[in-house]
């Protein structure tokens, strides 16, 4: 049967929580809901269906369960419960009745349970899925990954000597241009070693997988399940068809099962085509051509340490005869072995761990609030409990009643929490789908929900019971007398409430300060000077996968430059190997070497080399500090004319002015400095560019399937630019895919998207925490005022001014907040250590952030205290006294 949409599955899950005698109908309910959901056209209708189905659910749940348990007469119920349950039934009925009488209490407690359960379940589901779940491959616990990060063909072949591993799989991920439905499309291609797909347990849904014979012929491809669906519309006749991959024919031998998740650590999260790795390629026999990512399956009983030993021994043997296995310092190049699971998630582990910590803090705050509400209610009812005991109810009965109440709150809150979690998970994934490995397959986990439910349910039970236990232990007569005024026992509980409020404030401060640090980092990253023009610049990254010689590469660059110059509104054109911000997410594409000045090697400095056209500096508006851009006549000159960036000029020659005209050797190229330009943020706003130089793109000595063109257009021309540029590329290179045309502004927004996401999530948690802390404070002060109603009444009657009384209450509220802030500041300082790798441009103990966070809390606390204080100040003295 086909997989149902998550909403329908969630509904089925909810229906599963109805009493057992509805079992026969559950499937039908789910089917009927599925019919409604799928039959509704448009999101609005769907929303209406959802609201109707879910809106009536809580009431129905209560009805069904109370009928099932016999608390209400139930027409049409065949089953009855055994006599043993009768006591519990009475309790439950009582709990429902008393909760109905206190709707504010019932709503806020269940709401808090729902919030806590929902938030924790959402985040924990993600963490559980990404970090804790096993990889979906056979013998996944025995799979290991070789780091550092890729390896050569001969090394892969020698790995067979490692005795602790029974099989190896390697992949070389490249990109190729394939014509699909008449348009050139850039596809991700994984060239894999023999048996790779079988190693990871993949199957074929059409045709077959790769066979050993394919490696000799090499003209065979497999289409991935996703590519088959999205690019070829699940064409049933695709097997046997010939594709042109980078202009060469390749026959489709099969379609890989769409449910197969490619191993991300080896081939990335998206593969369109699988091909046999081309061992006939000369470079594949070279030990310095490191392109294969490698995983292995250890023999049963061998752990990664054993594999590491085997790999180390192999490396020792190899290094003896081959300098390519030795680094500059003469040491053997290390190849760290880790489990494949660790290699898959290492990048997100820290981020998700932090989210989990943040949501855990939020759950604590929510629990503290639940505790408040139950304590307050318990104190209000000391007298009621005492009366009931006086009328003959045993201590046990009283405790049981309160327990039932807590359980009902926990159960109803849990159901609502499930809905919050389902919604939260979808929102989360839609906000940030690319940042999570295996993110596509995340679904809600019932175990996780149970965990959160137990935490908040336990809170409700413990704090619901506390007053009851006190009531049972205390002196009956005293309690009957003391009434609402508060007894010795309640004073202890009152102290507990104060501690809870302070704790809430402290925890909120941690959340607010963390959010503050992240927001400040985001702001300072965005405020970073780029060093190049951002407005009115559009760029076109290209992957010319079929260039085979430097001459072809240079010719293509020239043609694209001329084509772009013909586009209306274009003022300057640049063609380069890479553009600023292209590698903001990581990587240092693509060319760098060490520099030598006057025979002295600048050995600490790796120089980033950027082949660019003459238009690069004017297009990006980079400031020329001295000298000039090379002239048209010089582009093929020798020594190579270059422009240095300021850091390199200062490092090599002492100043920008001193560099011009000087000779320089980088790698084995002889160069002469013709100019110096200002530093730019080439690799992202938060990264130093380091030493860099620009040389004529005409002198690129190798063919490389990367090129990046940019134009500076006249202000206001922007709108039609992307289409015009795409057409211009195709006018000179009809088979070249143009995946995106992007404005420089967009590159910058993308480079900071993850920071914005982090700030947003923490900001939301902080806002919720603040709200909850304010609620707790408000409730406590309201209660304090209520407890002292009589005292306040007397004071007012004796002539105390309202203002004085109000001030007194506000001050006691602020005192509680102050204690919380002091504790919270310490905690925030410690917790900011965890955030260190996310913080940029701000000290982790940043005083401004801490002061502002404390200020926000104090201000909120002042308002939350003033409201109940005002109410207390308006007490009518007569009424207050009469109430006793």
């Amino acid at each position, binding site marked *: 049967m086909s997989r149902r949409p998550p909403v329908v599955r969630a*509904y089925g899950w909810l*229906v599963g929580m*109805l009493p057992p005698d*509805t079992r*026969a*109908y559950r*499937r*039908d*309910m*789910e*089917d*009927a*809901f*599925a*019919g*409604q959901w799928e*039959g509704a056209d448009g999101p609005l209708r769907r929303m209406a269906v959802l609201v*109707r*189905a879910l809106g*009536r*659910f809580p009431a*129905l749940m209560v*009805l*069904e369960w109370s009928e099932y348990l016999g608390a209400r007469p139930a*027409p*049409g*119920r*065949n089953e009855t419960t055994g006599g043993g349950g009768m006591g519990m039934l009475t309790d439950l009925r009582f709990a429902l009745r008393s909760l109905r009488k206190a709707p504010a209490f019932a709503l806020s407690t269940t709401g808090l349970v729902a919030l806590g359960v929902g938030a924790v379940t959402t985040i924990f589901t993600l963490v559980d899925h990404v970090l804790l779940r096993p990889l979906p491959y056979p013998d996944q616990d025995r799979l290991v990954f070789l780091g550092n990060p890729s390896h050569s063909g001969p090394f892969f072949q020698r790995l067979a000597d490692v005795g602790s591993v029974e099989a190896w799989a390697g992949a070389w991920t490249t990109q190729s241009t394939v014509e699909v439905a008449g348009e050139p499309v850039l596809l991700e291609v994984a060239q894999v070693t023999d048996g790779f797909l079988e190693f990871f347990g993949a199957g074929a849904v059409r045709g077959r997988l790769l066979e050993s014979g394919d490696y000799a012929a090499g003209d065979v491809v497999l289409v991935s399940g996703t590519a088959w669906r999205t690019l070829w519309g699940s064409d049933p006749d695709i097997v046997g068809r010939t594709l042109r991959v980078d202009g060469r024919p390749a026959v489709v031998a099969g379609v890989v099962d769409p449910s197969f998740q490619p191993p991300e650590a080896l081939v990335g999260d998206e593969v369109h085509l699988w091909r046999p790795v081309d061992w006939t390629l000369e470079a594949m026999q070279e030990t310095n051509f490191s392109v294969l990512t490698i995983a292995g399956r250890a023999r049963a009983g061998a752990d990664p340490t054993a594999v590491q030993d085997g790999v180390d021994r192999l490396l020792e043997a190899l290094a003896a005869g081959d300098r390519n296995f030795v680094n500059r310092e003469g040491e053997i190049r290390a190849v760290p072995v880790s489990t494949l699971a660790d290699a898959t998630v290492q990048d997100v582990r820290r981020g998700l761990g932090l989210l989990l910590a943040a949501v855990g803090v939020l759950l604590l705050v929510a629990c503290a609030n639940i505790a408040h509400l139950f304590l307050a209610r318990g104190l209000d009812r000391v007298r009621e409990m005492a009366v009931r005991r006086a009328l003959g109810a045993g201590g046990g009965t009283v405790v049981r009643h309160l327990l039932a109440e807590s359980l009902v709150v926990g159960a109803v809150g849990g159901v609502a929490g499930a809905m919050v979690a389902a919604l939260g998970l979808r929102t989360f994934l839609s906000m940030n789908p690319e940042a999570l490995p295996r993110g596509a397959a995340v679904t809600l986990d019932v175990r996780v929900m149970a965990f959160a439910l137990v935490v908040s349910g336990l809170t409700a039970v413990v704090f619901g019971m506390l007053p009851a236990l006190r009531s049972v232990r205390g002196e009956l007569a005293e309690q009957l007398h003391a009434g609402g005024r508060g007894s010795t026992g309640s004073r202890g509980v009152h102290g507990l409430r104060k501690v809870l409020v302070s704790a809430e404030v402290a925890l909120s401060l941690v959340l607010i300060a963390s959010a503050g640090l992240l927001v400040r980092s985001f702001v300072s990253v965005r405020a970073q000077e780029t060093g190049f023009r951002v407005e009115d610049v559009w760029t076109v990254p290209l992957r010319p996968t079929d260039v085979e010689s430097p001459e072809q590469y240079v010719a293509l660059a020239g043609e694209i430059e001329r084509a772009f110059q013909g586009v209306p509104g274009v003022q300057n054109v640049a063609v380069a190997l890479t553009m600023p911000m292209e590698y903001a997410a990581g990587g240092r594409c693509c060319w760098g070497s060490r520099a030598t000045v006057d025979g002295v090697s600048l050995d600490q400095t790796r120089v980033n080399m950027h082949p660019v056209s003459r238009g690069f500096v004017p297009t990006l508006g980079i400031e020329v500090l001295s000298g000039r851009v090379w002239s048209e006549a010089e582009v093929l000159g020798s020594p190579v004319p270059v422009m240095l960036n300021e850091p390199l000029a200062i490092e090599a020659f002492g100043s920008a002015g001193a560099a011009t005209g000087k000779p320089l050797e980088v790698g084995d190229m002889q160069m002469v400095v013709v100019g110096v330009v200002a530093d730019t943020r080439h690799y992202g706003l938060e990264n130093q560019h380091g030493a860099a130089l620009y040389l004529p793109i005409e002198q690129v000595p190798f063919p490389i399937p990367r090129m990046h063109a940019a134009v500076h257009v006249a202000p206001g021309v922007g709108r039609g630019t992307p289409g015009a540029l795409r057409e211009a590329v195709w006018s000179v290179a009809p088979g070249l895919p143009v995946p995106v045309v992007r404005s420089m502004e967009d590159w910058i927004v993308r480079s900071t998207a993850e920071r914005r996401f982090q700030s947003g999530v923490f900001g939301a948690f902080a806002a919720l925490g603040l709200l909850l802390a304010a609620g707790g404070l408000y409730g406590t002060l309201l209660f304090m005022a209520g407890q002292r109603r009589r005292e306040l009444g007397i004071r007012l009657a004796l002539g105390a001014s309202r203002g004085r009384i109000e001030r007194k209450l506000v001050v006691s509220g602020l005192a509680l907040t102050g204690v919380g802030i002091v504790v919270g500041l310490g905690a925030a300082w410690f917790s900011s250590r965890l955030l260190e790798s996310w913080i940029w441009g701000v000290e982790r103990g940043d005083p401004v952030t801490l002061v502002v966070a404390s200020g926000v809390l104090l201000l909120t606390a002042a308002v939350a205290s003033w409201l109940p204080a005002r109410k207390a100040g308006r007490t009518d003295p007569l009424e207050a006294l009469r109430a006793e």
Partner: protein
Amino acid sequence: MDPTEHLPLAPRDLLILAVLAEGPNHGYGLIKAVEERSRSGVLLDPANLYRVLRRMRALAWIEDVADDADRRRTHRITGDGRRVLAAELERLERLLADAGPAVAGGG
């Protein structure tokens, strides 16, 4: 069974019986049919529908049709169900007849 003892029927019950009187139907079919003919805005959600159906089945107004080909549970009206439906319709008609002239005269 005295069909009048359950009158008046809730609009929702009346509509469900009326739909089933035209032939057996399953859950989603019922929801759709009821919504189509309900100008008074009787809207059903699956869980509540099954609550109603279970009650009617206990009263023996409807019964399940065994149908193995289609795993969905299909409901059919019984003789008792038809009698209750007829009694309710008669009651409503009488009510309309009584109220009719007054309305006509007042309008």
